[in-house]
């Protein structure tokens, strides 16, 4: 049977009344599996992978409701109900970490979200192609470096004794600042280093969206006497708006991810007060102090809130723009 007639059959079937659906779909299941058993066979490795490495850890979150003992395993450990969550709500440290996560994330959104849009708009104004290509090549590059390397570069240029930034400050008559050890500066350093790494790269999606805007609109506007700023505001930005809204919704969906990997490479005990976030807290409590159950509870809180935000974000963008990530 050809693929085409099969598709036609499915389409007809969709139009059939609902009560005959059940038997026909069982019939179709058998037929599909029999004639395409090799395709169904290819599902097995992927499903095994999902079962072991994705769904087994989801079952593992049950230790958040236990007093987990690593020698007794999940089946042997004592159930304690919501005790770990009660501990979480009462722990001052958790509120600090939660607040840090939100504030760092919001700073990153407020400052690092608009920058790629500005970059795309300005790149669009550059007519000299070699200059444009060179700039693009340079500003995309930091995206490919690991957080360890970015952390290393920033600790080097911010070093109080021999770093580039402090050389500049002392040359201008200021006093050298120990940036990485300062609670006043640490969040700013996180935002700036994240910008350094990702802002250029983030512009790509907007550059592509600008390239999709029809040139005739710009020509018509020029004939009507519009200048570059007018065209930017009245043509380019509206042309980008759906992309911007989509990216913002997605970004807001991951507001609880303040940059765990980044902070883990850059922070130290002096700046826990301002720089410790949920991800790093779970890492320290869980693997450092071996408080498996409590840190799983914190992680579960994080996952559940993240799940709700992502689902809401995706729902909103589908309703608003008819677009979604999936």
């Amino acid at each position, binding site marked *: 049977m050809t693929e085409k007639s099969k598709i036609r059959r499915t389409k007809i079937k969709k139009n059939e009344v609902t009560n005959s659906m059940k038997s026909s779909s069982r019939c179709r299941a058998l037929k599909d599996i029999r004639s395409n058993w090799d395709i169904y066979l290819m599902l097995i490795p992927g499903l095994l992978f999902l079962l072991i490495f994705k769904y*087994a850890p989801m079952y593992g979150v049950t230790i958040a409701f236990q007093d987990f003992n690593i020698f007794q395993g999940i089946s042997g450990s004592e159930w304690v109900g919501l005790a770990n969550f009660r501990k979480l709500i009462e722990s001052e440290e958790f509120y600090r970490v939660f607040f840090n996560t939100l504030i760092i994330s919001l700073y990153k959104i407020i400052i690092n979200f608009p920058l790629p849009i500005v970059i795309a708009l300005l790149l669009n104004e550059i007519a000299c192609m070699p200059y444009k290509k060179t700039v693009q090549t340079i500003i995309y590059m930091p995206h490919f470096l*690991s957080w360890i390397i970015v952390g290393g570069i920033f600790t080097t240029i911010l070093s109080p004794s021999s770093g580039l930034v402090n050389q500049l400050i002392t040359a201008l008559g200021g006093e050298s600042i120990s940036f990485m050890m300062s609670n006043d500066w640490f969040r700013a350093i996180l935002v700036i280093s994240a910008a350094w790494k990702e802002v250029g790269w983030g512009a790509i999606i907007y550059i592509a969206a600008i390239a999709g805007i029809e040139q005739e609109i710009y020509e018509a506007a020029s004939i009507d006497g519009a200048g570059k700023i007018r065209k930017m505001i009245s043509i380019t930005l509206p042309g980008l708006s759906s992309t911007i809204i989509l990216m913002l919704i997605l970004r807001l969906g991951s507001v609880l991810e303040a940059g765990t990997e980044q902070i883990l490479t850059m922070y130290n005990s002096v700046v826990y007060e301002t720089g410790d976030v949920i991800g790093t807290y779970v890492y320290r409590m869980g693997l450092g102090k071996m408080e498996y159950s409590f840190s799983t509870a914190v992680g579960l809180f994080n996952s559940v809130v993240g799940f709700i935000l992502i689902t809401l974000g995706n729902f909103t963008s589908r309703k608003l723009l008819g677009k979604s990530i999936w």
Partner: protein
Amino acid sequence: MKFKATFEDICVSVVSYLFMGILALSALIPFINIIAKATSEEWAVVSGKVTLWPIGFSLDALKYVVTSSQFLNAFSVSVFVTVAGTFLALLMTAMAAYPLSKKNLWGIKGIIVIYIFTMMFNGGLVPNYLLIRSLKLNNTLWALILPGLINVHNMLIIKNYYESLPDSIEESARIDGASNITILFKIVVPLSVPVFATIALFIAVALWNDYFGPLLYINSPNLKTLQLYLRDIVTNVADDTLQNADDAMNLPTEGVRSATIIASTVPILCVYPFLQKHFVKGILIGSVKG
């Protein structure tokens, strides 16, 4: 039709050229500074004199790093994990994506949902860690490769690519009596080489740059990846005023640190032209589904 540039237009151009130039410079300057430090003589680095140009040019620090057995060992572990991991992950991802591109078949849509759910919800750090421990994978390089075999986002990109291949080719092959397997290997795979290349690069960069995995699962010194080795060196700096005098003696010098950063960036820079080209393509085909 040409228009005469107004004052406003010239201003916009000047601002654009200047701003983008400054941006590109600020992306470059930290690199130049690190290169200068890695190639200066030690006394100049310590006294804080080096800015953008090496003082008393010397390649000793770089030579020391690339001949150090720890660095070479970490480097080769990283190369192994990246090469083996990319091969296995691409194989798994490409294979898992194929049945999912046959949406007309019974049950496939449900399985796509099972995959997508894992993008939205995960067990979290500790359950994952305990899983690897109970599988006895900790302190093996498998712990770095196996959990990342299928990245659902990458898989969806490949699936969408399969779906975009014209149906007519497959139909005509089927009329000629080709089986599913023949169609897969003789038609779909050869046509999908470009997307495979892009995804292979995605996977390779992620594996090369991964340090959270090694940090969680690798303790033994001779299995340390390059990123983990770098972390030892870099985090020592972050804490340097906290260290006591004894530790301070054993700290890598700043020149050596800079040289290590440079030596581990070079492999990425060597393949950067390919990366740029394919990543841009990948981000545009995969980011948004209409």
